């Protein structure tokens, strides 16, 4: 195809893959950070797409309602790109995002709006108005009970579980660093959180 006279195709194939193509995790973050420091907008957009779910779940795991969490996610990203030079280790990006999000979430926001009642918030975020088949209804009911038990857990548990649920995307060491835990204690702590949750579920006559 390259030998052909089709210049349009030539232009398209000449577009090289970005240097972070094929990378994952901390390697991907480091490559994008490097490019972002040189002003590469595509690299910044890639980081935002990759790590916004993490920032979101940290914000939510620290007790922010969904609207406040949206603002905090934006504030954290703007803060990152304003202070790109001060982040010395690009591989520590995810840890930086977690720490900054928690600090931002814990600021006295001057807006102590009481959290929405759990059921309302659940209803708001649950796309469940359409008539559902039996399986769907059962699953929705189960999800509702899991959500209610989850929101009764201590905040530290909620945050830890949200982060491990993102696992694959966020690694163990990352979770440990962010929660300031020795690496070996993440597993046992998570186990206790899950036991705690199972107790809450069964005390409501729920599932095991």
């Amino acid at each position, binding site marked *: 195809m390259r030998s052909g006279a089709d210049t349009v195709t030539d232009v398209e194939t000449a577009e090289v893959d970005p240097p972070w193509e094929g990378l994952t995790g901390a390697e991907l973050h480091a490559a994008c950070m490097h490019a972002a420091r040189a002003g590469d*907008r595509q690299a*910044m*957009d890639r980081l*935002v*797409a990759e790590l*916004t*779910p993490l920032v*979101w*779940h940290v914000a*939510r795991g620290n007790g922010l309602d*969904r*609207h*406040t969490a*949206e*603002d905090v*996610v*934006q*504030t954290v*990203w*703007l*803060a990152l*790109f*304003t202070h*790109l030079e001060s982040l010395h280790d690009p591989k520590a990006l995810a840890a930086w995002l977690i720490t900054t999000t928690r600090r931002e979430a814990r*600021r006295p*926001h*001057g*807006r102590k*709006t009481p959290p929405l009642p759990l059921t309302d918030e*659940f209803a708001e*975020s*649950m*796309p469940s108005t359409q008539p559902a088949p039996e399986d769907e209804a059962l699953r929705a009911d*189960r*999800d509702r009970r*899991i*959500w209610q038990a*989850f929101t009764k857990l201590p905040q530290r548990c909620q945050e830890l*579980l*949200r982060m*491990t*649920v993102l696992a694959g995307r966020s690694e*163990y060491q990352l979770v440990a660093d962010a929660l300031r835990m020795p*690496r*070996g204690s*993440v*597993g*046992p702590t*998570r*186990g206790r959180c*899950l036991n705690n*949750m*199972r107790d809450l579920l069964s005390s409501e006559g729920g599932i*095991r």
Partner: protein
Amino acid sequence: MGSISSADQILLADLRRMLDVTDPPPGDLVQRVQFAIALENLDVEVARWERMDALSGVRGGGQGTITFTVSDLTVMINLTKVGQRHRIDGWLVPAGEYGVEVRVAEHGSTSTTADEGGRFVLDEVPCGTTQIVVTVGDVSCRRTVVTPTIVL
């Protein structure tokens, strides 16, 4: 790291599914962040949305007052819906003849300058993902303050 019991694995899988269904990031959040950072100059301070007032009416409703603050600057805007567009009446405290820009996704931006009392008006602002950029100070010490995006 230890092994995970199968009961724990099942509960984690349930939790993963439940969080994906119940509490995912809003579908347009990534795009909104990407819009918010698509600024010529990224050396900015981020103003925070003060939510002491009932703002649930503002979000989506397109009317009401929003206050943003950052260190020593407060940006107050009052939104009035006029047909499909908005009129923005704003007030900067402390007052100054500062540049104010309103960026709306896919609609470019509109600029004005606040008067010496810190007041500014922007008419005919289209609906959409919106961000306000205020340039504070004089040539010797210029700072740029931005707000998170809001959907008007």
